[in-house]
């Protein structure tokens, strides 16, 4: 069997500034995108059905290729806001962001057009906005709880803040990517953002632990931490990538949403841990500590 090895990067070739510049630049761009989104749309992300309220129908359409969408457009009044086809079976997921028409009416329209209603889901706007508040509170609680825990564990400022900044960036960059790629914020993506907090901190803690608490030189410790950490992130990444692809094919939106955002988050985490966190740690180790 061919074992792959995590490549050893010669960090001595790069200064701390150089190392930190890339992730910080990406973070800045991400913040700009989110800020711009806020200015342009009034919300930092595109809230999905769970938060805005509306209805979602999954209908089986028995139509020749290419005509299904047309039939759907004709069948419903108001027209669906989005139409997504599920590759594995001939169904379409339609969303309606409307308050005037109830989901019962939409179901009737679907049946009248000869579609089979596979599932329907509706959230009222007022319920949605309350959910949004709860979700926001949940993410904030998770983030601050994690930060407090990290500070308790390391009890030194620079390594702790390095972890917290990395985790912050791990959340912000996927959110910006969601905006760019048109992925809406749903309960699934909120769950994924919380998972990122859990997953991404692992490799940061590992790195800090190896560098601060073990004997051995900085670069040796770094390499050992990387070997373990990169393997960890890669296995998770592989699982999530596969889950995203398969769930998308099957039209299981919850799993697909969680998978997609985690893929973004884990990839971001690779960059943040081994460039941003590492540069901060190296600065701390060689210059920050007054020894």
């Amino acid at each position, binding site marked *: *069997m*061919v*074992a*792959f090895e995590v490549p050893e990067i010669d960090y001595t070739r790069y200064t701390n500034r150089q190392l930190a510049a890339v992730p910080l630049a990406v973070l800045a761009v991400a913040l700009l995108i989110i800020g711009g989104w806020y200015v342009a749309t009034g919300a930092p992300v595109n809230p999905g059905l769970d938060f805005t309220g509306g209805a979602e129908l999954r209908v089986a359409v028995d139509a020749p290729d290419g005509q299904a969408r047309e039939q759907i457009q004709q069948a419903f009044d108001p027209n669906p806001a989005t139409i997504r086809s599920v590759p*594995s*079976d001939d169904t379409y997921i339609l969303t309606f962001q409307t*308050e005037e*028409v*109830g989901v*019962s009416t939409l*179901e009737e329209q679907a049946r009248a057009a000869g579609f089979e*209603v*596979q*599932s329907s*889901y*509706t959230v*009222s706007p*007022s319920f949605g906005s*309350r*959910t949004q508040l*709860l979700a926001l*509170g*949940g993410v904030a*609680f*998770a983030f601050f*709880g*994690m930060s407090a*825990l*990290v500070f308790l564990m390391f009890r030194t400022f620079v390594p702790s803040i390095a972890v917290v900044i990395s985790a912050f960036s791990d959340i912000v960059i996927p959110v910006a990517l969601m905006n760019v790629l048109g992925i809406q914020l749903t*309960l*699934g993506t*909120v*769950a994924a953002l*919380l*998972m990122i*907090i*859990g*997953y991404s*901190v*692992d490799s940061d*803690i*590992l790195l800090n*632990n190896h560098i601060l608490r073990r004997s051995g030189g900085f670069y040796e410790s770094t390499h*050992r931490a990387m070997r*373990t950490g990169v*393997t*960890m992130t*890669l*296995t*998770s990444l*592989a*699982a999530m990538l596969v*889950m995203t692809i*398969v*769930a998308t094919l*099957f039209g*299981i939106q*919850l*799993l697909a949403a*969680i998978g997609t955002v985690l893929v973004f988050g884990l990839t971001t985490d690779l960059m943040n841990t081994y460039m941003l966190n590492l540069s901060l740690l190296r600065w701390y180790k060689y210059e920050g500590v007054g020894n």
Partner: protein
Amino acid sequence: MGVVRENWRIFLLIVVLLGSLFALFSPTMAQDGADAPGLASSGATNLQYGLQLSGGTRIRAPLVGVTATSVEFGETQPPQVEQDVAGQLDGVTVADVIVRQQTQTTGTVEVTVDGVTPEQLGTALDSAGYTYENTREGVTAETRSQTVDILSNKINEAGLSGGTVQQIQTPTGENYVLIEVPDENRQRVVNLVNQRGNVRVDAYYPTDGGYDRETVLERDDFQSIGNAQQGGEGQLPHVPVVVRESVAADFQQRMVQTGVASQGGSRCRYETAPNSTDPCLLLVVDGQVVNSFGMSPGLAAGMRSGDWAQDPRFILQTQNFSEARQVAINLRAGALPAPLDIGPDGEGTSSFIAPSQGQSFRTDSLLTGIIAVFAVAGVVFLRYGEVEVALPMIVTALSEVVILLGFAAGIGYPLDLSVIAGFIAVIGTGVDDLIIIADEVMAEGDVNSRRVFQSRFKKAFWVIGAAAATTIIAMSPLAVLSLGDLQGFAIFTILGVLVGVLLTRPAYGDILRALLTR
């Protein structure tokens, strides 16, 4: 004995695994699938599937209503208070006002109809001359539990097997009613629960200046309610009922007085000629006249002679059979004290999954999980290239899932998509931590002594414990906040992390030691 003592963690894992398998597969542990509320059992295993994976309808909505607390009635009786309050509010009938006494002279006043704000209730109480402490959105706890009971009755009466109704409260203090009905179409459930179900019979009869209407029978006046009948042979669909003895004589007298039970019976033409018809009986559901009928000569004669009250049987005619069924359900289950806030501008959410869709979600998500496991296994094998390290890793991670599945089967927790997502997350974090252990233990050359192994394992465990703690913190909001479907995801991720740290990861350490320190 030494073997057991040294490897007790492995033995503990095996015992727990066996227990989980027992919970999963043993027929003795099986909960009766048909009776388990809101769930469908799967056959081969004892796992329960939630609506997402078995199909059905879920409705979650608050109750409509506003409440005034500590209202001073003085000497006035509750029915009078209800009338006074209803009289002050537009579009509110006495049936929409509920007065509950707490002491002799004080209590709560609820108005359970859409469109009345707490301020309006306050103004109405002021104008009616009652003092109160404050008014708020929402209804009282009594009304909530009454509504829940009646809704469950309705679902049982309608023959929707396995349906459940429960109250849930969010941590922020909002109350919702959660209705889950497996295998049932959304529309049917909504039709059933959306009706207040207030059934009464009115007499409609001519007086000097025109026609008068008066309620003659209400739900409490019936001793028993029969099953809806199809009718046939000239008879319309109907519900046979028996009127209570205590009110039968009264009713009989009213029938004679109003002329419904006149000589030779009465022929009702309420729908076509409401201004010239014979006296009629009107069947009224939630304020809407659903049918009108006269009285047969035979029944009328019985009432006139006074014999009917000895055997007070009666039928409520309807236009069609489904209406008859609806009336029977409403009469038996009772009227909802407060309606559910569903509908386009309501506060509720509802979801429906077709049983076929649920089935395919079940197999598809299982397949997704298995493929994800293979992806993880592939990376692990590629990375280590040693079957001795990699295989136990995969087996250990999978055993975490088996334990969680056994747990879910044991407590009857319904599996949903979010729980499956949790399992996949558990495999992800589980393998991550096993990688930490393996790398740490195998670092810098061979592990030749037990002491070296122990110290390295301890170091690895510090990181794992820290990582587990952060994951639990990150997931805890989802586990307690009622953010819809995601509670299951959070609960099983947290459980998985706990099982991993306390059970499987220490056992993996032992396995690895056995393999490496031979």
